[in-house]
């Protein structure tokens, strides 16, 4: 049975983390020129939307937000017990020459991000790709790191980090399940 072990972020914690990341994205890129946010399905999508809202509050203009589905790029398709559903990638603007910030809820092994990088590069040649995550839980299996992190959380491999967002889960918190 999966049990709730600890809550690592509440509603306010999530809000503050995203506000800080929005400031960091603007600071690092010296504004929002050529900036694009791309959320990785599923929970990266509402997070990217929220970051775009936050950035608009701070800087004015709204940056474009795209949606990336990485199912067809997964490296574990032949080993999964079930077959994942393929959903749409919606990036209706060119990515070549842009600064793309990939957004996901949790970074763990890094394999999702590897797949996302391949998927993104198949759409064009961004000038730079950065990564924003709400939670970094460690245990990387690939040489990948996040540029913007909401919270670093030491975990055991057996634990599960569950990000719950109101758009998808009807509540706002981040839990460790064991």
């Amino acid at each position: 049975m999966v049990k709730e072990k600890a809550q690592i972020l509440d509603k306010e914690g999530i809000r503050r983390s995203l506000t800080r990341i929005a400031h960091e994205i603007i600071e690092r890129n010296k504004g929002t020129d050529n900036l694009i946010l791309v959320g990785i399905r599923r929970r990266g999508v509402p997070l990217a939307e929220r970051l775009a809202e936050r950035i608009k509050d701070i800087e004015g203009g709204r940056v474009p937000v795209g949606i990336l589905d990485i199912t067809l790029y997964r490296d574990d398709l032949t080993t999964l017990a079930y077959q994942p559903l393929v959903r749409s990638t919606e990036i209706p603007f060119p990515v070549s020459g842009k600064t793309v910030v990939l957004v996901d809820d949790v970074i763990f092994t890094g394999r999702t991000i590897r797949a996302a990088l391949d998927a993104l590069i198949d759409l064009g040649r961004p000038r730079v790709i950065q990564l924003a995550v709400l939670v970094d839980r460690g245990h990387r299996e690939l040489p990948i790191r996040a540029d913007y992190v909401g919270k670093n959380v030491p975990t055991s491999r057996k634990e599960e980090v569950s990000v719950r967002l109101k758009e998808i889960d009807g509540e706002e918190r981040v839990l460790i399940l064991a």
Partner: protein
Amino acid sequence: MGLKSKDLVGLHHVTAQEIELILDTAAPMKEIIKRNIKKVPTLRGRTVVTVFYEASTRTRTSFELAAKYLSADTVGIAVATSSVNKGESLKDTALNIAAMGADVVVLRHPMAGAAELLARTLDVSVINAGDGAHEHPSQALLDLFTVREKKGRLAGLKVAIIGDILHSRVARSDIWGYTKMGAEVYLAGPATLIPPGIEKMGARVCGSLEEALEGADVINILRIQLERQQQGLFPSLREYSRIFGLNSDRLKLAAPDALVMHPGPMNRGVEISPDVAYGQQSVINEQVTNGVAVRMALLYLLIGGGA
């Protein structure tokens, strides 16, 4: 989730839920076809073999492109230049292909039941690309996809299927598909080309073309199969065209936003007039694009993992 069978022989034994899954998966596949770089790595290292015992341009090319866009390797067996000419049976040909490591065999064959036979013989997946007058499931799926994309739904629509129902595997797969998804199917054609008992599949047979077209949301025109018309089942092509050909006047009987569809290849001026075939309401070209997307979805769902 996923498809229950390793094969796709026909829509007769596929559930509405499975059809829904295939159409839902085809939508993101269509986005890939519209990219500059039309390739995703999903089926790298997999092999799709197409074995066609009958002529085809669209279906075969469509399957091969679908496989290539997903990074699978493809081999086409052209029966005319193969060992089939030395008398090798379908079963032995297929066993040999499977022994070389194919993951999917796409088969078109003049005999109804050929795909079913192969599916039972082989451990690898078999997709029926047309067996006699039995079924052509991927064509029906692309028809369903096209209608759902344009109309936003399938349930409750009035679908007219016009022409040579007797020889048409597309009609049979379409009837299964549309009725399972809750649409109503009306058939019209020369009485000699309407097989007895077809109502048992859930379609209604109309006494005239006009009756079938009245208020239709979708009009599926079938090809008059010139190669199968040597038995005198109707007097002449000209008469067929006069009584059953779709032209712009008859199109007005259908709903104002009715879709005009044709599985190809068209006999323009026989079953459909050129102005309708290339008119505003025609989605015939889009059917072809959607065919690749639907076949990508099928390949993914049949061999794209799920150990």
